Structure formats: structure tokens, C-alpha cells
């Protein structure tokens, strides 16, 4: 089980696992799903190793009563039908260009990810992968993030509400 071999586990494996875990703690606007059993779609931009890992994890898994799907996104692709957008380190430059889209949880992997509009951003602390959360960005995108997730976040940028 690559997920659990913490320490020895490779960073992309950890991030993929985290991306999957986030699904449990986030509430999307109802309208972002076409049907009650429409899948939660994770779009990956510029991080093929994480995408590959996700594709290992998601088949057969059910979160919030929905299947989970992982797709590769290309630069400039439409974000319609995407619930989580992971912008890899290499695609970090794209982040600034993304318009804040309703119902899309943007996860970045760069030092200034939150400043550039991401809701969740991976950071490294004490040699381990952690994440920070920007509540204002989440509010902007009409997303609600469970306080339980916030409890383990390395830092939380407060929202306006």
C-alpha cells in the first residue's frame, strides 16, 4: 500500500492520496452535479505522476455517494464538470491565469499558491507534505470545507464570513 508508507512514500503518491482524501471534507454546490450519481471529477493539470497515482486509487471508490474520476486537463481546457483541479508544480504559472470558477476546488503546489487564487495549497513542513487552506477563495467558489479538515491544515487563511 503505497499510501501508507509514510516517510518512504514518494511525494506524488502522498499528494494523490491527499487529493482523494479532500473529497470527503468538501461540499460542492448541488448544481455542479448533473445527476445524483454523477461522479466527482478530479482534473489534473501538469502532474502526470500524481494523475497516474490517482488513477490507481479511485476505481471503485465511492465518496459522498458518488464515484470518483480522475482526468488529465490540458492548458486552457474548460473546467466545466470538474470538481477538483490540481495544478502541478510545473503548471504553476497557469494558476494566475485561471478565473475563479464556481464549484471548482483548486489545489495548487507552489509557494504562493493561495495568493494566486488556489483554495488548497500543498506545502512542505518538517520534511513532510502538509497543506494550507484559503477560506476566502473557497467562499468565492461557493465551496464549504469541513472544519475537521481545517484542524489538520498547516495554516488557514480566514474567509470574509
Amino acid at each position, binding site marked *: 500500500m503505497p499510501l*501508507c508508507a509514510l516517510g518512504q512514500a514518494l511525494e506524488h503518491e502522498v499528494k494523490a492520496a491527499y487529493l482523494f482524501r479532500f473529497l470527503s471534507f468538501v461540499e460542492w454546490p448541488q448544481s455542479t452535479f448533473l445527476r445524483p450519481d454523477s461522479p466527482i471529477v478530479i482534473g489534473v493539470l501538469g502532474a502526470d505522476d500524481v494523475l497516474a497515482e490517482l488513477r490507481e486509487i479511485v476505481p471503485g471508490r465511492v465518496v459522498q455517494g458518488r464515484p470518483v474520476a480522475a482526468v488529465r486537463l490540458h492548458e486552457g481546457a474548460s473546467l466545466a464538470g470538474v470538481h477538483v483541479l490540481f495544478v502541478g508544480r510545473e503548471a504553476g504559472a497557469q494558476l494566475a491565469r485561471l478565473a475563479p470558477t464556481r464549484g471548482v476546488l483548486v489545489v495548487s503546489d507552489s509557494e504562493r499558491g493561495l495568493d494566486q487564487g488556489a483554495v488548497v495549497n500543498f506545502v512542505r513542513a518538517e520534511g513532510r507534505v502538509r497543506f494550507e487552506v484559503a477560506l476566502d477563495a473557497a467562499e468565492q467558489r461557493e465551496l464549504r470545507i469541513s472544519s475537521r479538515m481545517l484542524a489538520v491544515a498547516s495554516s488557514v487563511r480566514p474567509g470574509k464570513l
Partner: protein
Amino acid sequence: MRPLRWIGASVRRKTMAVVIATTVIALLVSAAAMLFYEVRTLRETHLAELRTQAEIIGRASGPALAFKDRKAAAQDLLMLRGRPDIELAALYALDGTLFASYARAGQSGIPPRAGAPGYRLEGDSVTLFHAVTDANEDLGTVFLRSSAGLRERMQDYVAILGSVLALSLAVAWLVSVWLQRAVTGPILNVAGAARQVFERRDFSVRAEKRTEDEIGMLADTLNRMLADLEREMTERREAEGAIRAADRRKDEFLATLAHELRNPLAPIRNALYIMQAARDNPAAVAEARAIIERQLAQMVRLVDDLLDVSRITTGKLNLRKEQVDARAVAQSAIEAVEPLARARGHALRVALPPTGVTLDADPTRLAQVFLNLLNNAIKFTDPGGRIDFEVEVAAGELVARVRDSGVGIAAEMREEIFEMFAQVDRSLERSTMGLGVGLSLARRLVELHGGTISVSSAGPGKGAEFVVRIPLAGERQPAARDDRAPFARASAARPHRILLADDNLDFASSFATLLRRMGNEVRVEHDGPAALAAAGEFRPEIAFLDIGLPKLNGFDLARRLRGLSATAGSKLVAVTGWGQPSDRQLASEAGFDDYMVKPVEIERIQAILRAA
């Protein structure tokens, strides 16, 4: 009860044991049940609590496990500080490796790897592995170890039980003391009374009735039994006393009897000696004969009285009632005592009713009553005394009073003297004669006549008065067959043919001589068949038959004579001796006209001859 033998025989200890044993058993059983239930529910609630705790920790540290945040996980576990019963806690990652742990001070032993979900009881502690899931996702395992506190609880229970037991025993002891007072107290009280009765033979002891329950009933029953027993015992004692008194009187009577029977013998012997020695002195011989006659009369009277006594005791004293003239009966009694009264120098004053007052009575017996009273008055009055005999009719009764100025009777003796053989002066040296039967005979005879007899006396030395009351006959009939009365006027009798049957040769010959001197023709036989044979040819007008005849007894002989034409209408007179059957009833049934007891009186014979 064998198992309770050690308790002994005391009801007190038994009730104590019962109360205490019941209390202890009830307490132990309820305590065991409570402990069992308590341990079970304790374990269950404890387990449920522990599961909840594990669930809470799992939920809280779900994100920490999910995002591998050991610090957050450790932080989450630290909230267990508020739960002192939880000794160890740990979180394990999905692969079973230890992720975070928590240990209360002084505790150790966190398993290095996660175990299978479930709980284990290890002595006083419970260990629990619980899966952590979030949104159906397995995230890891929680481990908790908690001291269930069973031991402390048990110790608490034992302490509580001990004090409850001690308290209950104290209460039970008090209850048994109370019970003793309320239950065994009355029982012991009854038992004590019963023992007292038995030990002291005192039937007047009574058990105190303290309660209205079964024990009260027991006390009542015991008391009733004791009352019955007491009454019976007193009755028995009284009866025994009466028997002893009667016995004593009989003994005294025997002594008196011997004395009385022997008394006349000396004068008779002297008289016989005089008659022999002074054969030529007619005055001396006449004097001697008079002595013998008097003494004999005295002895005859004694024996007659004895016969009457035996009749009384055997219930055979019967009356031959007829219409009698009260005056005549009284007169005959007076005539009999007059010589004696004169001899003692008494002034005898008599007041009688006129002739014509009749009553239904046995004239002989009624005269005997008056005779006895008059004799006593004469006897128990010093010479020169005064004796009143009054007979009158009052309120339909014949009232006869015999009053004297004699020795009188002490109050305590006034009832006693009517008892058989009772005499005030019992010394053999006393001047008066008698057996002590006169009054009891008199009373019996008066009672047979439906009357009463009573005595009054102003005390010793002040005289006495005896009063006889007899109801008068309802209808007055002219006295019939007056000539048969024993005290009928004497008149010359014409000569008769007389048959005399008696096996006593002396009696027969002397009686025959007497009858022949009276001018009668007499035939003597000494047994029954001979008398029967003689009767056929001799055709007697009168037959004197002994009852105790050999070969054919008097009763049977009389029956046969009545069957013979020669003697069918003859006058048959039964003659009985001492100790022979003396039933007038039997005699008259056998066909006898009259009845005589030996020794026969000359007046009686004359009366019979006159009547024939």
C-alpha cells in the same frame, strides 16, 4: 431438627437464629444477585462507553490519520486526559504501524502494532481495538486500554455489603429481641406457668394472657384445663375427706357397737345368777327377770337399729304407707317412752292434735321417728329435766316438736349429728348409750315421708329442739284396717290353730310354749316339706314360717300353702332372723300377710292373733 441441634432447646435462641439466618441469607443472596448484575452492566456500559470513546477519537483523528498528521493525532489523544479510567490510547495507520500514542502517568504497554477490532478483558482492564473510518474509508485503528474499575467497585461493594450486613444484624438482633418480647415472651410465660404447676403441684397457678393470638388461646386453654383440674382435685379431696370421715365414723361405730352389745350382758348374767341362787325368793327372781327383760329389750333395739342401718345403706328401707291418725301414732311413741322419762325424773309435757288428723304414712316408722327424738331428749337431759312434745297441724303440714332442757348441741355439730354413727360424745365412758344411728334413721324416714327434720339449740347446756315436718295426706280417708296397727288396743284373743315352722329348735319350742300358754293349738315343724305335709291335715288358721327353712324356703312354702285348699285363706306370717333376707316386698309377693323380725315381741304376736 437435627441441623439446628446446636441452637438447643430454647425458643428464644431459635427465634434469634431464625431472624438472623433469614437476614443473612436474604442479604447474601440479594448481594450476590446485585453484584452479578452490577458486574455485567458495569462491563457492558463500560464497554459501550469505551466504544463511544473510540468512535469519538476515531472521528476526531480521522483527518489526522487521513493526512498523516501525527501532531494533530497526538493532540487528539491528549483530550483523554479528562478520562482518568483510560490508561493507554493509541492510533495506528492503515498498515497497522503505530501512529500516535497516549499513556497516563505510570502506565505502559502500548501494542506496537494494531490488533484485530474487538475487545479483551484482561483482569481489571479492558482493551479495545476499534477501526477508524471516515466516509466508508478505513483510515486506521484506535487502541484504548481502560481500567474498568471493577476491582475498586468490588471493594466498594464488599465494604458496603459488610456495613449493610453489620447494620442488618444489629437490626435483626433488635427485631429478635422484640420478637422475643412479643412472641417467645408469652410462650415462655405459658411454659413457665405449666412448669410451675407441674413442679409445685399447685393447680391454682394461672398463665398470664398477654396476647390475643394463638399463644393467648394456648394460655386460655391451659387456664381452663387448670381450672377444671383444680376443681376436680378439690372435689376429689373433698370426696376423699368425706370417705375418710365416714370411715372414721364406721371405726368408731364398731368400737361403740362392741361396747353397747357387751353392756347388757353383765346385768343379764348377774340376773341369771340371782335367779339360780335366790330361787326361793320370788321378789328377787321377779327383779332379776325384769333386769333381763330390760337388757334384752335394749339389745333388741340395738339390733333393730343395726338392721335399719343396713337397710338404709343398701337402699332397702321401704315404707308401708297407709292412712294413719297422727294422734294415735304420737300416742304410741309417748307410751313407749313414758316409763323411761318417769325413771329419769323428767317432766314430760305433751300437746297433741285431736283424733282425725290423718296422713299417708308408715305408722311404725313414723312412731320410730318420734321415739328416737323423745329417747334422745330423755337421754341427753340430766335427771329432773323438762321435755315438751308438741304435735300440731300448720300450713298443710304435720309439725312435731321435741324440746328439752338438756345438754344442748354446739352449732358446729348441728348438721353432723344427723350423719350415720355421729355422736357428740364419743368416749366409751360416756353415761349415755347408743350407736349414733337414731337421728340419721329419723332423718331418712322423715325424708321417705317427703318431710324434713331440723334442729335448733341455744348452745351447749341450753337444751335443744328438734322439729319434724311432714306434709299431710291430700284426701282424708277414714283409717282402714286400724286393727292391724301395731299399737292397736290390746284385747283378749280367741284360741287359734297355729302352725309353727322353724329349724331353730330352741326358738321353735319356746315360741310354741308361749303360744300354747295363750290357749292356742300349736303344731311345730322343722323343715319346709314337713310343714307343707302337716298343713294339709292340720288346716292351721295361722302359720308362722321361718324364711330360712331347710329343703323348702319360707317364700316357696308360702306359695305352696296358698295353693292348698286347706291353707288358701289362712293367715301367713313371715319370721326372719338376723342376716336373713328381710324384704317385705318379697314376702307379700310370696303370699305372706304379715312380717316379723326375730326376736318376736309378745305384743306383736297378740296383735296378729287378735286380727286373725
